[in-house]
């Protein structure tokens, strides 16, 4: 069985291979040499199991995700369906994309995020590299940092991470995409959307100069 390295990610290597005759992606987490072995084992094992569970949960919530074909926790391995398409990150490298296309793309991302959040799932790494456009369908991949929560903070961090991936990698088109995103996200999530989007503003003001832990509450008002 031939395997080609598709991508060397931050914590895992992604290979393209075949599984029971199907084109499949093999996601293998790497042991990190800089981590204490106990911590490394714990982090990798927990994330492998949780990732597979959350991919399934996302599917139930109506988000397009790759199907999990095999889960092998001791080897930190997940085998999943290969999605034909282009990452949003690569898509946005093209010059002069029509505004309408960008807005529609933003709306699709907003719908995906809203469905996840409505089901009490946060993605944890909602960047343009983890969104794949396959025909008309937008797939969400890499649930390695995802979790279950209805906490406004966790949902807000998702949006904050997404917004910053737009600003830092695609500063020119980020505004239009985020416009479309907000429109649909707010509509789909309903009352809580306003709370989440307000929290995003709040999160962006944090992380600066907090001279005393005890005072930190006053920085979050």
């Amino acid at each position, binding site marked *: 069985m031939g395997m080609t390295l598709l991508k060397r990610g*931050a914590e895992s290597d992604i290979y393209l291979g075949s599984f029971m005759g199907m084109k499949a992606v093999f996601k293998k987490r790497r042991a990190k040499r800089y981590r204490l072995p106990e911590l490394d084992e714990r982090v990798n094992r927990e994330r492998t199991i949780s990732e597979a569970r959350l991919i399934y949960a996302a599917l139930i919530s109506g988000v397009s995700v790759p199907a999990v074909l095999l889960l092998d926790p001791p080897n930190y391995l997940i085998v999943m369906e290969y999605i034909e398409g282009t990452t949003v990150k690569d898509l946005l490298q093209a010059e002069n994309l029509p505004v309408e296309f960008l807005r529609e793309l933003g709306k699709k991302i907003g719908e995906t995020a809203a469905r996840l959040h409505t089901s009490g799932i946060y993605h944890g790494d909602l960047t343009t590299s983890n969104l794949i456009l396959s025909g008309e369908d937008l797939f969400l991949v890499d649930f390695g940092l995802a979790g279950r929560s209805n906490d406004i903070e966790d949902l807000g961090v998702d949006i904050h991470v997404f917004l910053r991936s737009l600003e830092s990698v695609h500063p020119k088109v980020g505004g239009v995409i985020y416009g479309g995103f907000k429109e649909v996200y707010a509509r789909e999530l309903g009352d809580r959307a306003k709370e989440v989007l307000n929290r995003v503003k709040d999160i962006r003001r944090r992380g600066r*100069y907090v001279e005393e832990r005890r005072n930190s509450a006053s920085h979050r008002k």
Partner: protein
Amino acid sequence: MIVLGIESTAHTFGVGIVKDSPPYILSNIRRTFIPKEGGMRPGEVARHHAEVAPGVVREALEKAGVSIRQVDAIAVSLGPGLGPVLRIGATVARALALKYAKPLVGVNHGIGHIEIGRLITGSRDPLILYISGGNTVISTRVGNRYRIFGETLDIALGNMMDVFVREVGLAPPYVVNGKHQIDLCAEGGKKFLNLPYVVKGQDMSFSGLLSAALRETKNNDLHDVCLSLREVAFDMMLEATERALALTSKSEILVVGGVAASGSLKEKLEEMTLDWGVKLSVVPQEFAGDNGAMIAYAGLLQASKGAYTELSESKVRQRWRIDEVELLWE
């Protein structure tokens, strides 16, 4: 062009003098406020800085062998930092600018850390880790801004370690012979304890880790808690860095800020960068902590493009993000 730079954002009052040709840095003098107990109280630190300021300015000029008349501009860090402390530096800078008729250059403290790091290590287009008592930022330059790829969602890494060692009675002093108390304490650690490991995207959260570690001290050996806390905190930082590396595909990492001096962090970074085949540059200790030379140098870059600050505009900004600054230089 010769620029005098004043640093006064936190516990250090520093004055550096730089020029626009080698050896660039002519002098770099600083005095650091060390509390007898507890942490930094802004009023106390401000009084300390106000007392040492004239002496530090004089010493920096003498060491550089230049008179104030030869200086072309006065640079000062206007933020981010503690308000009362920032205002001491700003007041000294305005006074010098007025008395000697020199133009003023307001500098962002974080930009100072980054630019001095680039000057000294020769790093060209790095992924930047800016880690200090008040900041935990992963950044890189995109166009004319330092864009932020990852940062702490609550308290800074250095702040978290400082608060921990203080709460358990190891500090002050926070640093002994160039080593942070947490590193000294961790040397005796054997057992690894489960502590919350929180990375979200490229962002980190340290406040839950701090609370959990403090709680663990009740039932565990302190050395074990120190070791576990440091390992988890640094590993979070490294993982977030790896994520930013994957996202930006940079081939160099530059580490700046006070925590850059940590030996255990450097060891981890060396292993990680070896794995990725990227170059690692760590700013040397003298320029890692807050200092005047970094403010002078960032001021020089700004002044070389004619970007001066009117006295009436020289207000301090306690929460001035690095990504708000437009970079006029290459």
